[in-house]
């Protein structure tokens, strides 16, 4: 069974290779290559999970080249890496298939092969971000991910998407240049680039008190760079434009997968490079906690203020990312497991919301303001059902996936003094605000028609793939909500590995 240890590297190289293959294609057949790639790498990630669950250590390191760690390059796979990659692959595949007819509409025909190329490259970079054991490799694949995800946005025919892409690109570039400076500061004071050696060196430096100031600055730069790229609170301005204007598959991939990929890399850096103790000692987590809470409130308030349903969902993304950072900032293991589950719940829900909203707005000729969407549920029942599932999940109704992280967050909140009260109050306010804006849209789309506009009825047989996919996504969401225990125990085991194994 040792050949399974090759699979992480095969996943990365295969997706890079398939991007090159897609470049040779002339027509839109290229997207079948993407489907094949995503299914194949999903199977590979799943087998890596099972291999690690059955093996004794639950963890392996794979050499990239002929030389061992400090000399050569390597990748590593525990339990969290393949499981998150599997999640990303499933979400990407579903949102790609579900939005395929929107891609045909929104993207010029000659350029549809680029969509497949960019999806493959995004997948390659996410796989590398998950598995990498070297900080500079991480930076390189952040760059690939930046360009590829930005191109997904640029492919839309609307000029508005280009403006949003420019803004997204600039924020991403700011973020990646901060990360680069942080990495280089780290390299200059430790002399290493690989995670295990960096961890050792940082631990020694921190305990001896040598280079403490540069170390703190470097950690701050890396964390803030990745936070900008994933859309933490003060830097969430690019989110509504970006997610609101792209074609639904692209917004699903961008919000559900790409920003989570950066967060996962941040998590990996916190545990495998900085070290759990040093991270708690450096007090960066208080900042993360504070910004997370601000993000939850501000994102929700902005979502209430807007009149465009896509923008509303995008602002709610900002709020949900606030939850994740709040969990990271609390710093206890239980809170981090809750944040991990929040990543899962959000990645499963957001693409579904974007897809079903596009299904609803198709009935009124692509308009996205609330006035037009009034009573559109009656014209596209399947999209309405999955939209309701997504909205309820975001609000945090039991049996949906979104309920579990809220439960875990409130359970983990106790025993931290002021932070307990802050967190509980923030959770309560944010839930109330969530209820406000999601229930409003739900009532709006189901209520009887008030304004007379031309409507088109969309039935199952018009868009069979879309309908099957959105229903499947709702089912997956409910499944994750009902059978959450195995996932939580998997995350707990994975987190233990992250903290303990070097």
């Amino acid at each position: 069974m040792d050949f399974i240890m090759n699979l992480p590297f095969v996943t990365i190289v295969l997706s890079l290779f398939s991007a090159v293959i897609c470049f040779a294609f002339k027509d839109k057949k290229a997207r079948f290559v993407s489907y094949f790639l995503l299914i194949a790498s999903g199977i590979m990630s799943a087998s890596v999970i099972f291999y690690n669950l059955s093996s004794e250590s639950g963890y392996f390191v794979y050499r990239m080249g002929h030389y061992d760690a400090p000399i050569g390059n390597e990748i590593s796979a525990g339990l969290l890496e393949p499981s998150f990659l599997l999640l990303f692959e499933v979400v990407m595949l579903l949102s790609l298939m579900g939005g395929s007819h929107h891609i045909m509409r929104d993207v010029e025909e000659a350029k549809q092969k680029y969509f497949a190329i960019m999806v493959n490259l995004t997948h390659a970079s996410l796989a590398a971000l998950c598995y990498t054991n070297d900080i500079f490799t991480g930076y390189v694949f952040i760059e690939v991910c930046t360009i590829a995800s930005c191109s997904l946005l640029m492919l839309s025919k609307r000029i508005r998407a280009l403006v949003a892409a420019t803004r997204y690109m600039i924020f991403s570039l700011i973020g990646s240049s901060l990360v680069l400076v942080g990495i280089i500061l780290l390299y200059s004071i430790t002399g290493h680039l690989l995670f295990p050696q960096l961890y050792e060196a940082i631990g020694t430096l921190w305990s001896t008190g040598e280079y403490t100031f540069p170390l703190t600055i470097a950690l701050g730069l890396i964390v803030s760079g990745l936070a900008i790229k994933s859309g933490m609170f003060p830097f969430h301005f690019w989110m509504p434009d970006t997610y609101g204007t792209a074609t639904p598959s692209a917004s699903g991939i961008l919000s559900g997968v790409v920003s989570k990929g950066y967060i996962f890399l941040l998590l990996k850096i916190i545990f495998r490079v900085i070290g759990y103790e040093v991270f708690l000692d450096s007090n960066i987590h208080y900042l993360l906690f504070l910004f997370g809470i601000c993000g939850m409130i501000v994102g929700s308030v902005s979502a209430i203020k807007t009149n465009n349903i896509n923008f509303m969902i995008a602002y709610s993304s900002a709020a949900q990312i606030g939850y994740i950072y709040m969990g990271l900032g609390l710093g206890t293991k239980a809170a981090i497991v809750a944040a991990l589950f929040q990543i899962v719940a959000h990645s499963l829900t957001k693409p579904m919301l974007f897809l079903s909203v596009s299904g609803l707005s198709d009935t009124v000729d692509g308009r996205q303001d609330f006035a037009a969407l009034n009573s559109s549920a009656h014209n596209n029942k399947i999209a309405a059902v999955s939209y309701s599932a997504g909205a309820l999940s975001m609000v945090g109704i039991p049996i949906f996936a979104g309920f579990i992280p809220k439960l875990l967050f409130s359970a983990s909140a106790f025993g931290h003094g002021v932070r307990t009260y802050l967190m509980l109050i923030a959770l309560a306010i944010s839930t109330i605000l969530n209820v406000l804006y999601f229930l409003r849209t739900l009532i709006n789309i189901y209520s009887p028609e008030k304004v007379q506009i031309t409507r088109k009825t969309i039935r199952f047989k018009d868009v069979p793939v879309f309908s099957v996919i959105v229903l499947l996504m709702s089912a997956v969401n409910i499944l994750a909500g009902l059978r959450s225990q195995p996932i939580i125990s998997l995350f707990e085991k994975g987190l233990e590995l992250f903290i303990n194994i070097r």
Partner: protein
Amino acid sequence: MNLLINYEAVTSMVLFAIGFTMLVFSRNIMKKILGLNIVDTGVYLFLASMGYIEGKLTPIVPATGEVNALDYINPIPQGLVLTGIVVSVSFSALMLALTVRLYKKYRTLNLDKIYEMCRKEDEQE
């Protein structure tokens, strides 16, 4: 004073600050791209200066005979920078391509104005 000896690093950090300010605060998209390039070169200068050791040789070793590692400077920063330079040109090309498309539509390089016009158009729709 460490700063007087570390003058290369100080220069690179000043360059980084100038470039970063251009990247963040400049309204003109062309200046943003130039700022991005300055940021990159500043960071690379910092990295290269950290690898430099006084009185040592370029890391190209003789083809035969013993090699004494301590006679040569550190090759790692050079390798990292080498790949980085080529990558930063691809970033600026991408941003320039975006500029061309945006300018053709809005006839201005000012990003704030582009956002504003874009928003107005949206309201009209």
